[in-house]
């Protein structure tokens, strides 16, 4: 009997080589040697599943998890730097992230399952480029960038310019490696929050995920500025710039918050999906979740516990 359409029970992956370089330059050389037929693997939680057969087959894998110095979370002046080997568990447990980027902390804590969070990396979540990627959405709201290294040098790409389609980025994964994620640490008048809507609380893809980072003067009851990100509501993770403009410079009140949330929902273009629900439901929920996220971020700003 042939189970041609079912690859779920393929045990082995057809990899010719699985290499574990000890330095970044060694890893880049290995990519070069495979002439475009090798890919980088870190946690492997997406790649190993994608490589069961059929699409996304690759000849060689270059495992970067034994390269030292890439697993730190640091505050460098006012910039938070997250190494490309930092797992979701490590982000979740980081006090620095909880204090200075709460939306990322809470989003990382909701991704996958404990096992997946122990294995998978935030950088991998970004590179995999799914429009609803749990950690990409808060990182967009936090105005993050990735550092991409190749034999020719390095470049920094803001997340707002990184994604080109579902599963697609400007990174050439046959010759480039993301080594670091960076973003400005939130300051005293700034805070963030995120929400995830899903059928259950583990091992399901999000129906929606939203994140907000805002700056406000709570005494004068005025928003300074805000960044709002939502997914999966388009082919790439999405910033809601029009909804952000509604908040910028406006008084903090129910009407403004609702208007911003409605503007975000209007910009969202979710699809009707068997696993995620109808377009109408999801679009209505964007408004509700954005409103909740703005309010939670404001609460955090007033309470001063976590930003």
């Amino acid at each position, binding site marked *: 009997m042939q189970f041609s359409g079912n690859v*779920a*029970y*393929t*045990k*082995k*992956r*057809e*990899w*010719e*080589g*699985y290499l*574990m370089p000890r330095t970044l330059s060694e890893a880049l050389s290995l990519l070069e040697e495979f002439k475009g037929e090798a890919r980088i*693997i870190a946690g*492997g*939680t997406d790649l*190993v*599943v994608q490589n*069961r057969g059929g699409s996304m087959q690759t000849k060689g*894998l270059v*495992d970067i*998890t034994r390269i030292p110095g890439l697993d730190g979370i640091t505050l460098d002046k006012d910039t938070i730097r997250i190494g490309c080997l930092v797992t979701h*568990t490590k982000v979740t447990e980081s006090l620095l992230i909880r204090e200075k980027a709460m939306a990322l902390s809470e989003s990382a804590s909701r991704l*996958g*399952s*404990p*096992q*997946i969070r*122990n*294995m998978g990396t935030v950088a991998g979540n970004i590179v995999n480029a799914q429009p609803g990627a749990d950690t990409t959405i808060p990182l967009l709201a936090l105005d993050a960038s990735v550092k991409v290294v190749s034999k020719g040098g390095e470049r920094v790409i803001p997340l707002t310019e990184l994604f080109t389609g579902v599963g697609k980025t400007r990174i050439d994964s046959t010759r480039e490696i993301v080594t670091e994620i960076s973003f400005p640490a939130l300051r005293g008048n700034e805070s963030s929050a995120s929400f995830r809507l899903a059928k259950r*609380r*583990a*091992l399901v893809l999000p129906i929606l995920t939203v994140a907000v980072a805002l700056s406000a003067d709570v005494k004068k009851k005025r928003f300074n500025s805000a960044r709002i990100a939502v997914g999966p509501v388009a082919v790439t993770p999405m910033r809601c710039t029009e909804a952000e403009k509604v908040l910028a410079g406006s008084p903090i009140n129910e009407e403004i918050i609702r208007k911003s949330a409605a503007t975000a929902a209007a910009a969202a273009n979710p699809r009707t999906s068997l696993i995620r629900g109808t377009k109408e439901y999801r679009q209505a929920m964007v408004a509700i979740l954005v409103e909740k996220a703005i309010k939670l971020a404001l609460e955090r700003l007033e309470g001063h516990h976590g930003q």
Partner: protein
Amino acid sequence: MGNETVKFTVNGKGVSLEVEPGDMLVDVLRERLGLTGTKAGCREGECGVCSVIMNGTLVASCILPIKKAEGATILTIEGLEANRELHLVQKHFIDNGAIQCGFCTPAMVLAGKALLDKNPRPTREEIQLAISGILCRCTGYQKIIKAIDSASKSGKRGEV
């Protein structure tokens, strides 16, 4: 058998095996080392029955390429008893009847141990979170939660 050598420690014993780069840890444990307590379910990291403890953390061995085990310390359900005595979490699973078909039990017990090693007195919510990556096909979660809870409150710590 394979074309690369991998060395690691499993349940306190060092092993050195010839493997193929595309082998997953779960298959090496089950088929090469005879450690069939670790189960293979969905094979895509979704059901958690393949969970083992690697270097102190719970991982899904069905999506773990074998080369990642190089130099690692791995604990499977077979390595949990010490001096012919079951681990505290195992005892409380038995006392609470936290087992139905048994397919998820090794993973659930290891998840309980991994939790108690880090957090000896977890809340119910923390226990639920700790086992949230493992699917019990019999839906017997309540007794599993109760077993881990009673192990945590028994006043003794498991020694492995």
